[in-house]
């Protein structure tokens, strides 16, 4: 048998006193899609950074085609044919798509002038190769997160690599876009490219991977085939069997909290193609978890933000009521006064003060409560922090660490705990587990269900259909800003997808 395309043997990497990799073996065959799974902190990012030349291993070797290689920087890894798409996209938001795709290797005309038309048409060709209608002349800042991800992927593909490393490429994509991306990945693999595919979404593994390596605590916990039962993968990931990921549903819904009837709003910044909703009707009852499903652009995020009084132009129209009484949700102040709390889908951008301590972040939405007469009470502050740490297993258990140093899952717990401290009656959640590992997901779901059992109403938007189906009591499907269907939890995924895409069942 010929040597694998890429192999890593006995890789060890230490950071100060922390051993991130403790002797990892990994190999990738040409034409293979190899899924790399692991919870945050398991070492998969470190391994990825070794392969892409960001770090050099303290011990161990890397071989390509049986030849030993050593990368001192990412450029050398690229020259060897390894391209990496990092989760934080390396795109310049203020440049257009074509300029981003050709950044650093622009097409030129004689005389040193940029050949913009050539770059645009080439960019269009490459974008259309993955069947996506993105205008190469549009500014990246005006694209949705999903569209940006696609541009980043196209950019990495254009390095004509032999090895493609993808760090959670589907995290922000809609189901349709994921399918298209998988098609491209299969095509690339068929042409001989080896793909390392890092993901948190276990359900995607059997769809796309040829082989699975699971990492835990800086070691390889196991190499398995992709059709292994999900419970087996979870056991490898967390090192113990995990109870059901989703908690049992409760059936006791209380009084109606939020009620929308033919409600509509305008956005302050309407992106091209966005249709203002012509009328949304939905209810959220106390003790109920209601999901918002829909393809990207269906208005899930917009609806949640509008309910929280942000991003609005003017007022809500139609009937908006809390507890059966009309309410004006035209500002954050009004929404909070009505007992509404909101957790954004972008915890780093708009959820947390990354450089500030965990404890200071936790009390952010209850500053008023912990500062009688305008003076911060250390005792009340410590009590609030203790309450949050009691509610969520935030690691490390130290409120003085900068929240930016925590893993994604723990950061998400901080954002949630922060809003829950404010004792809201209705919690709006946008993508509550994006970029969160399985263990933390399970904890977050369990906690949400507990809170619902105590009477909290939860309205949750997610692009992860299994999450909505597993977690929610009811699922409301949005299309073009309107509710077009409603299902009870546990419904078949395809039924929801058909409704979201406007296909009659």
């Amino acid at each position, binding site marked *: 048998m010929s040597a694998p395309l890429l192999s890593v043997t006995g890789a060890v990497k230490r950071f100060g006193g922390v051993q991130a990799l403790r002797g990892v073996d990994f190999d990738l065959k040409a034409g293979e899609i190899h899924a790399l799974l692991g919870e945050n902190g398991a070492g998969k990012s470190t391994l990825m950074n070794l392969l892409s030349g960001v770090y050099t291993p303290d011990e161990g070797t890397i071989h390509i085609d049986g030849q030993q290689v050593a990368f001192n920087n990412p450029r050398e890894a690229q020259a060897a044919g390894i391209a990496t798409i990092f989760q934080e996209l390396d795109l310049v938001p203020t440049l257009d798509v074509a300029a981003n795709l050709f950044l650093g290797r622009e097409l030129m005309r004689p005389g040193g002038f940029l050949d913009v038309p050539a770059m645009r048409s080439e960019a269009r060709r490459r974008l259309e190769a993955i069947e996506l209608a993105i205008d190469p002349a549009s500014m990246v800042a005006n694209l949705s997160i999903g569209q940006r991800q696609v541009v980043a992927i196209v950019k990495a593909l254009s390095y004509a690599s032999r090895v493609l490393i993808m760090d959670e490429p589907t995290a922000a994509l809609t189901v349709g876009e994921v399918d298209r991306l998988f098609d491209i990945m299969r095509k690339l693999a068929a042409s001989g490219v080896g793909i390392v595919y890092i993901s948190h979404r276990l359900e995607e593994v059997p769809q796309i991977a040829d082989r699975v390596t699971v990492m835990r605590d800086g070691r390889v916990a196991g190499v398995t085939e992709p059709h292994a039962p999900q419970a087996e993968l979870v056991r490898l990931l967390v090192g113990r069997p995990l109870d059901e990921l989703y908690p049992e549903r409760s059936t006791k819904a209380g009084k109606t909290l939020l009620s929308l009837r033919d409600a509509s709003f305008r956005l302050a910044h309407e992106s091209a193609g966005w249709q203002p909703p012509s009328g949304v009707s939905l209810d959220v009852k106390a003790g109920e978890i209601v999901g918002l499903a829909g393809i990207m652009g269906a208005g899930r995020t917009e609806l949640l933000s509008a309910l929280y009084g942000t991003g609005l132009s003017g007022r809500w129209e139609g009937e908006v009521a809390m507890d059966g009484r009309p309410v004006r949700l035209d500002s*954050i102040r009004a929404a909070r006064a009505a007992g509404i709390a909101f957790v954004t889908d972008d915890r780093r951008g*708009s959820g947390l*003060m990354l450089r500030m301590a965990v404890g200071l972040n936790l009390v952010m939405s209850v*500053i008023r409560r912990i*500062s009688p007469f305008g003076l*911060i009470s250390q005792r009340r502050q410590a009590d609030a922090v203790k309450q949050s740490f009691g509610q969520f297993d935030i690691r490390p258990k130290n409120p003085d660490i*900068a929240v930016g*140093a925590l893993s994604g899952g723990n950061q998400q717990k901080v954002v949630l705990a922060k809003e829950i401290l404010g004792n809201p009656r209705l919690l709006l959640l946008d993508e509550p587990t994006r970029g969160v590992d399985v263990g933390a997901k399970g904890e977050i779901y369990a906690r949400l269900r507990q809170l619902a059992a105590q009477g909290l109403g939860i309205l949750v938007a997610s692009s992860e259909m299994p999450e909505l189906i597993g977690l929610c009591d009811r699922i409301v499907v949005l299309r073009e800003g309107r509710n077009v269907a409603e299902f009870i939890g546990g419904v078949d995924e395809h039924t929801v997808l058909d409704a979201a895409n406007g296909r009659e069942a």
Partner: protein
Amino acid sequence: MSEQKISVTASPAVPAAAPRHRDPLALVVRFQSLIGLVVVAIGGIIFSPRRHGQILFLDPDNIANIVRAVSETGIIAIGMTFVIITAGIDLSVGAVLGLSSVVTASMMISGGFGLIPTILAVLIMGIVFGAIQGTISTRFRLEPFIVTLAGLQAARGLALVVSGNQYINISYGDGPGLAPPVFAILGERLFNNTVPVATIVFIVFAAIATIVLNTTRFGRYVFAVGGNERAARISGVPVSMVKISVYAITGFASAMAGIVHAGQFNFGSANDGMGYELTAIAAVVIGGTSLFGGAGSMVGTVAGTIMLGALANILQLNNITPAMQLLATAAIIVLAAVLQSLVRRREGLGR
């Protein structure tokens, strides 16, 4: 993980937070201005000229001179610390000082106002001036850099109008056209002729500001706005009010510095206070406050201010040219910034 007692450190003076391990570099940065102050003081003692075996640098008159000379920029730097923690900047402070000195002098000399009404009026003017800048910046979503650059021009223009581009000399005495003699106390020293009154104003203001920043709801809001404005807004922090307030604080501080200036030098001049904004920003940055917002310390600012003054003093004592003084200050600013950047990278928090 074992049961651990959960508490929050009592003082959120540097909410940039301790990193996981006690990183010695982080500790250096946390106390960089205090360490710098000690280093400069030791350097001052070593390199100080001596007369009759006495170290001139440590002479009580010399020390009093240092802390008096820095009190005006120090007062401004205290206000500036609030602004910079919100990730803002205020370039108008030096000009507002000039305007305030002019208004103080002309109200008492040509206007015939008493001491208290004059001081109150000037302080209110400073607050209003700052609040207007803050309001323009938040209402129209303009960069504070631009708004306060315009504010700088406006304040200088107003000062020229009020003064007619003349020095307004303050003479003391009773009756019209004369300032109350008690005003001259700002140029004097108390406690056996040791502690300059200007310095007392500076230190008292610094103490109050430290308490406001570290123990009040408002102080916490200031950190929150600079830490992540969007997150603060979503958490219900009245972001616009906080921003307007911090510019009102710098306006107030600049007006107070202007009054102190007029009292120390016995005149009002439209062109005084030039470049003070940059000295104040330098003191704040050396004090460990991040220009990116969200982290900072008032104690650091005070130490940074005094350190810059002590450095200038020791260079002067050794007859080193003002040109070299500027270069030395430049080196210290860069050093402080590099140290901070290193720590941020260690913490893995990017810039």
